[in-house]
């Protein structure tokens, strides 16, 4: 009331610009390239089981990515996207959550879903859009989702999940609000974590989502994956500020930047963010810095827009680094690990072969789920379509044989 414009109240006579370099945001790093704790670094609270699960998940995703990239080249799936270089950022952040916290991702975060327990078969069913796909074969490969695992189904339009995450998180907080005074009456059980790329952060939905979370106080962790590229567009053609983290201040959101190739640092930062969120009900912005080691997707070839030199100076591997940490800790048996990885690669190939033979969804799935129950118009359209397919079975081999 004495401050209706909601601003700092200090006054100056000096006619000077605030310079964008006013904030010089550091990147939190705990492990060196070899996985050894850096001087002054404080190890977060992490147990062996969690550390190993993070590691196994990263290995799994690396193997899956390599195999599926190859499968796409062979024409077995139409499309694929690798997590290459960002496995640490994604896996360790997911690991710092409770398993029933909500995750709303962009698309390159298969590692988080795996960490939650999505099975190899489930990955395959989605990619082959067969009738076992939870998404009923309706979206392109890599658009996973699982209600059971609290992992929102991926949607291609970029940035849309950001304000949605704010809304989802807000619902998680409502039961903890004291209606009388509007204050938190208890620690919040679950929060929402929202992943997005530095490219998607240019969308208006980013602005809306972060501002609303700050104003309405929603317990959401905004996890920005700054990997340097949005398809071919480099980060310096995407924004002119200091990364994404520098925007946190403008929204009044607590912010932290972390080395995304350092799984331990990511784990520590996300843990801290989650703790803050459940206690205060407020959002946190985490920016992960990890280079996109691979192509944008199988439709892309980065040699058209970035240099060999750049690629050769940006090679940080989060898996190797975390492996070093585990070895130092004495938590990993390297031989066993290698054997498991070999076996895994076999399993993936086998799973491809199984999934590609599973039938496609039935014709009824063309019109189901548009509404909770098909409206009359859709029933009519389905009937007409069925009759047509039946009349021309050769032209529609996928469904013709199964129409009742």
């Amino acid at each position, binding site marked *: 009331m004495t401050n209706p414009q909601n601003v700092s109240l200090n006054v100056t006579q000096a006619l000077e610009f605030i310079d964008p370099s006013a904030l010089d945001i550091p990147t939190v790093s705990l492990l060196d390239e070899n996985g050894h704790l850096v001087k002054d670094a404080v190890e977060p609270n992490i147990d062996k089981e969690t550390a190993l699960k993070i590691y196994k998940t990263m290995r799994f995703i690396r193997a899956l990515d390599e195999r599926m990239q190859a499968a796409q080249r062979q024409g077995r799936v139409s499309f694929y996207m690798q997590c290459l270089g960002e496995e640490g950022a994604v896996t360790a952040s997911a690991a710092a959550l409770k398993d029933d916290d909500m995750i709303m991702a962009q698309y390159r975060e298969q590692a988080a879903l795996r960490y939650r327990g999505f099975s190899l078969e489930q990955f395959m069913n989605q990619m082959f859009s067969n009738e076992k796909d939870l998404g009923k074969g309706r979206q392109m490969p890599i658009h996973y*989702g699982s*209600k059971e695992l609290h992992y929102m189904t991926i949607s291609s*339009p970029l940035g849309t999940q950001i304000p*949605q995450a704010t809304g989802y998180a807000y619902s998680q907080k*409502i039961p903890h609000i004291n209606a009388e005074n509007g204050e938190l009456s208890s620690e919040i059980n679950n929060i929402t974590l929202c992943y997005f790329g530095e490219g998607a952060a240019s969308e208006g939905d980013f602005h809306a989502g972060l501002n*609303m979370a700050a104003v309405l106080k929603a317990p959401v962790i905004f996890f920005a994956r700054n990997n340097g590229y949005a398809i071919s567009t480099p980060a310096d053609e995407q924004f002119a500020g200091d990364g994404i983290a520098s925007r946190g201040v403008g929204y009044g959101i607590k912010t932290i930047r972390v080395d995304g190739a350092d799984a331990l640092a990511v784990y520590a930062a996300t843990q801290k963010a989650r703790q803050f969120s459940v206690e205060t009900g407020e959002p946190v912005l985490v920016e992960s810095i990890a280079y996109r080691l691979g192509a944008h997707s199988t439709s892309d070839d980065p040699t058209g827009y970035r240099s060999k030199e750049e690629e050769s100076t940006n090679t940080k591997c989060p898996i190797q680094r975390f492996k070093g940490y585990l070895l130092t800790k004495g938590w990993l048996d390297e031989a066993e690990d290698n054997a498991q990885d070999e076996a895994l690669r076999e399993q993936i190939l086998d799973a491809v072969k199984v999934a590609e033979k599973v039938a496609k969804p039935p014709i009824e799935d063309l019109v189901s*789920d*548009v509404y909770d129950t098909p409206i009359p118009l859709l029933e009519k359209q389905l009937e007409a379509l069925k009759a047509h397919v039946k009349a021309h079975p050769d032209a529609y081999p996928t469904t013709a044989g199964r129409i009742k």
Partner: protein
Amino acid sequence: MAQMNMLQAINSALDISMSEHPLACIFGEDVGYFGGVFRATSGLQEKYGKHRVFNTPLTEQGILGFANGLAAAGAPAIAEIQFADYIFPAFDQIVNESAKFRYRSGNEFNVGKLTIRTPYGGGIAGGLYHSQSPEAYFAHTPGLKLVVPRNAYQAKGLLRACIKDDNPVIFFEPKRLYRASIGDVPEDDFIIPIGKAEVVSEGSDITLLAWGAQMEIIEQAAEMAKEEGISCEVIDLRSIQPWDVETVAKSVTKTGRLLISHEAPVTCGFGAEIAATIQQECFLHLESPISRVCGLDTPYPLALEKEYIPDALKVLSAIKQSVQF
């Protein structure tokens, strides 16, 4: 029963809905303490708390993004867009997200609990940006339901149906009628089902079809036509998606003629869909071309609003043209 205007009827429907579900939230620009620029949410923040009835920052895309997330989590999300003219920044969140949420996820997730309320329509000297009727933009989007009430009673019953419906629904409120439409409305809960048109008055020569504030106009035209010996059957479509082909087709089969009237520009308005469907359904029964009396294909004007709007006189001449075809 009580005498209510449309705003009070809407407020009553919102009140019941808020009491029904502990997670239900109402939000939008100025809807909190102030109760909305039209006062539709008046008194609700006081009753249900600032955490369940609240102002949002000024961002329609944010309001709908937030609403989608809230609804996906199972909370009834009742979002207000201050004027339908300002729903377009939220178009992506509605058309690409709300409408496709259930389908794309194989029903792992859905935003069935989402209801969008927005005042729409002209006749209030609002010019380009306080007059639009954007229903047709959404009618082309499978996954959405669209509902428009014509009076206070309908507003309460239909809004309750929208909020209870397990699909994202846009509820277009004819703002010209907010205070003008007064009538008996039950204070208790009741529901008018979505997807059913209502034959408001029966007739034999021609079917007149409209929705929302335009109902007043076609009813007026029907009265005028009656004086000239033409018997009109008047239908309120009420629900634009899904729409009640059966009731309309049945009527047209009887009368042999159809006139559709809406405020939005004629080209690719929802009247086009109705005409296209009914010429198919009733081809052999039609005695004259289906007629559309709608807004011109221009932005909504101001000084010449009277000339622009599809008023009763225009409807009347189209009725005569149709009958004399």
